[in-house]
C-alpha cells in the first residue's frame, strides 16, 4: 500500500517563508513575530497550517461545523503557548500543532460535547450530470469514510497521522504518548481493518 499524502494539505502559501531546517514549516523569524502578536505573521502562521489542521480534525471527528471550532481552538492554544515553543532541529511546528489538535479532539470526546459525526452525513452528494467514473470515485470516498468511522480512536489517529501527515513512527509515538511498537501494531491493524471494510463496501456497491 503506497503512502498517500494529500499534497494539497502540505502545500505552502506562496507568501509564506519556509524554515531552512524544516522545509514546509514556518521560519523562526515569523514565529518570533507571531509571539510578538504581529497580525501579518499570525495570518501566515494560520494560512500555512490551517489545511493540515482541518484535515486532521475532520478525519478524526467527521466533517461538520464543529471542525472549524476545534481548528480555531487549536490556533488559539498554539498562540498562547508560543512563548514556550522552541524551533529546534527535531521539532516541527506542524507536529506541535497536531499534538494540540489531538489533545483537543480527545478532550472533546471525553466531555462528550462533540459526538462523533457519521462521516457519511456531510459527504458530497454526487452530481448526476458528472461522468460515471467521477460518480464511482465519490462512492469510493463515501465508502472509505464509512469504513474509517469504524476504526477505534487510537487506530484512527495513528493511521491518519501516518498516511496523511507523513509523520514517522517515532514522531507518532511521541505525539500519541505510546511506545513505537504500539504505534506499529495499531497502524498494522488499522490498515488491515480498513482493507477488509473497504472490500466489503466495494462488494456492496457492485
Amino acid at each position, binding site marked *: 500500500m503506497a503512502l498517500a499524502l494529500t499534497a494539497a*494539505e502540505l502545500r505552502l502559501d506562496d507568501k509564506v517563508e519556509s524554515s531552512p531546517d524544516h522545509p514546509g514549516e514556518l521560519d523562526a523569524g515569523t514565529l518570533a513575530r507571531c509571539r510578538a502578536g504581529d497580525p501579518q505573521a499570525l495570518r501566515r502562521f494560520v494560512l500555512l497550517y490551517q489545511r493540515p489542521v*482541518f484535515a486532521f480534525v475532520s478525519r478524526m471527528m467527521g466533517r461538520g461545523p464543529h471542525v472549524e471550532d476545534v481548528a480555531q481552538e487549536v490556533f488559539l492554544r498554539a498562540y498562547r503557548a508560543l512563548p*514556550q515553543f522552541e524551533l529546534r532541529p527535531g521539532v516541527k511546528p506542524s507536529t506541535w500543532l497536531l499534538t494540540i489538535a489531538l489533545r483537543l479532539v480527545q478532550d472533546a470526546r471525553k466531555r462528550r460535547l462533540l459526538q462523533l459525526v457519521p462521516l457519511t452525513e456531510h459527504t458530497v452528494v454526487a452530481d448526476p450530470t458528472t461522468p460515471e467514473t467521477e460518480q464511482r470515485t465519490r462512492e469510493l470516498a463515501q465508502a472509505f469514510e464509512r469504513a474509517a468511522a469504524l476504526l477505534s480512536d487510537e487506530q484512527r489517529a495513528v493511521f491518519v497521522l501516518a498516511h496523511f501527515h507523513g509523520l514517522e513512527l517515532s514522531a507518532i509515538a511521541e505525539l500519541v504518548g505510546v511506545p513505537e511498537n504500539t504505534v506499529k501494531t495499531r497502524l498494522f491493524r488499522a490498515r488491515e481493518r480498513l482493507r477488509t471494510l473497504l472490500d466489503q463496501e466495494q462488494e456492496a456497491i457492485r
Partner: protein
Amino acid sequence: MSNHDFRDWTPQEPPADFAERAVVAMLAAGAVQAAPEPAAKNVLPLRRSWGLIGLAAIFMGASAWGMLGTRQAPVVEAPSMSEDVAEAVAAPPPVLADHGARWRRAETPASEPVSSAQAVRPAPKTASTALSPTHPPGQPPCHCETDLAICTCVE
C-alpha cells in the same frame, strides 16, 4: 484483496476567510500568555498529585514530630517524701490514727501489687507504736480480719 487509495478520503477544507477570523480571535484573546500546551502535557494531574503528596508529607512529618516529642519528654518524678511528711503519714495524730489505719488498709488489699510510691515509703508502724493512753498496753488498737478489709478498733 484490492489496493485502495487513501487519497479518496478527502478532508474538510477550511473556509476562505478562516485565517482572518482566526487571527482576530487570537488577538482578541489578549496578550501572549504562558500556557502549558502541549509540551507540559498532563500538567494538571501532575500538579494535583504533587499537591496531595505534599499534604501527605506535611501530615506525616507533623505526626512523627509529635510522637518523637512525646517520647523524648523528660520523665516527671514525684517529689520524694520528706522525713517529716513520711513520719506524719506513718503515724497520724492520735485522734485520726484509727481512721487513718482503716483507710489505708481498706485501700490496699493484700492481693493488689504494691505501688512504687508505697514501696519507697517506710513501712507503717504498727498501731501499738501510736500509743493511745486509753489502750491497754501490749494490745494493738485495731484488729483486722485476714482480708484486711474490716478492722475493729478498740477505743
